[in-house]
């Protein structure tokens, strides 16, 4: 039981997909202009993550490893289509606000990364819990970032959830519009990442960014196998040492962006 709980809590801070593993950066930056959009995006991704993890875990003995990436993509794309149709029917405003980033959940590195790294190697229950934990970590980060950007950028909080925002400060404090625009996204994300590193430092644990945290690190040495899962790898890692000190060479001679130490 304790182990099961650990799988879930892992995703929240220790292996937070956005702040620590640096995956799924595009939706993180794009939809967090409003806290509610962040929450909606996070929940949609969580749903896809849990479902695809379960299905991929069930299929892990059936799918031949040469074609696994296309198989995973098809499974994920199916669930994304389900989410798209449900959201279009019941939450049209949110559907419109998320726009192109809803179908883009398909290429979200978190989902493919967890499929490759966890679900293809573990049982159904563990995979579902991993999906839940990672999804909650993603949702939490997105909602928090959305909160900061919405309160400072437009002075409201959770506009869109109910008919009225939970509170509205825009009358008393002039909102800083820049924070809900593109530069604000990069800036707040940078600050959040720095905060996560600082928190980890207080904990006394070493920060690891780069290949160690990269979910695709496992598949990196195999050049072809990289095909799908390695976007996160090319981005957050790329031919650097992973946590265990084992050298993970990718074909692409890139440099990892996050030199944690």
């Amino acid at each position, binding site marked *: 039981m304790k182990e099961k709980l650990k799988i879930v809590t892992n995703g929240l801070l220790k292996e937070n997909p956005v702040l620590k593993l640096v995956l799924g*950066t*595009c939706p993180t930056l794009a939809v967090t202009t409003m806290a509610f959009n962040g929450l909606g995006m996070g929940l949609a991704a969580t749903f896809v993550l849990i479902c695809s993890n379960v299905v991929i875990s069930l299929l892990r003995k059936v799918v031949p490893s040469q074609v696994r990436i*296309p198989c995973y993509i098809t499974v994920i794309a199916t669930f*994304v289509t389900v989410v798209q149709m449900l959201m279009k029917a019941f939450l049209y405003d949110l559907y419109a606000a998320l726009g192109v980033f809803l179908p883009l959940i398909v290429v*979200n*590195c978190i989902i493919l990364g967890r499929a490759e790294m966890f679900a293809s190697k573990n049982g159904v229950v563990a995979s579902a819990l991993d999906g839940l934990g990672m999804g909650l970590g993603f949702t939490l980060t997105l909602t928090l970032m959305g909160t900061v950007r919405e309160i400072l950028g437009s002075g409201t909080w959770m506009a869109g959830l109910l008919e009225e925002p939970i509170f509205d400060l825009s009358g008393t404090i002039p909102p800083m519009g820049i924070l809900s625009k593109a530069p604000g996204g*990069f800036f707040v994300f940078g600050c959040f990442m720095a905060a996560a590193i600082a928190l980890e430092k207080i904990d006394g644990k070493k920060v690891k960014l780069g290949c160690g945290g990269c979910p695709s690190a496992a598949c990196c040495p195999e050049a072809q196998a990289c095909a799908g899962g390695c*976007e996160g790898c090319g*981005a957050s890692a790329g031919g650097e040492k992973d946590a265990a000190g084992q050298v993970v060479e990718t074909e692409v001679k890139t440099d990892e962006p996050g030199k944690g130490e």
Partner: protein
Amino acid sequence: MAVKLAAIFFSMIFVDNYVLSKFLGICPFLGVSKKLNSAVGMSVAVTVVMVIATAATWPIYHYILVPNELEYMQTIVFILIIAVLVQLLETVLKKFLPPLYAALGVYLPLITTNCAILGVTILNIDNGYNFAEALVCSAGAGIGFLLAMVLFSGVRSRIEEAKPPKCFEGLPITLVAASLVSLSFMGFGGIIEAIFGV
């Protein structure tokens, strides 16, 4: 017509820059922008795949999916087309154009899951562009990506020398720098309307 195409092209590069204002393709932007030559290689590969993917997905959407009322299959069909195309391109380049493969080949496997590619194909449909506009829009998006990558690789080489606070080292300070680059691109707002009058 030509004016409209030019307007789309330049607005994709400067105003609606995919990386800096629409947040598509952030992963390679942060991952591969450290060195100038890898930044250029990646961007050229992305541009090529973007244009080819648009040329393939646009007709399939309008001539196969729409007549059969299968629009809801868009996401699945598009991602599979892109995955197949990238594989195909890799094989063809390897066989017939080895020098080009040597230059771009390593970036190709990473491109399948690049959200800028799927993003541009979907946005072309969403915006209701015709075939020519869609192609121009994809080319513009790719060149905008190239511009952002090249500019940012310059910025990054300066950051390497800087000494930010401990917890900002690495990726956080890079993101803050990206925020400033993106701020400078906001200055292009309105320029397209002023020049082309559309």
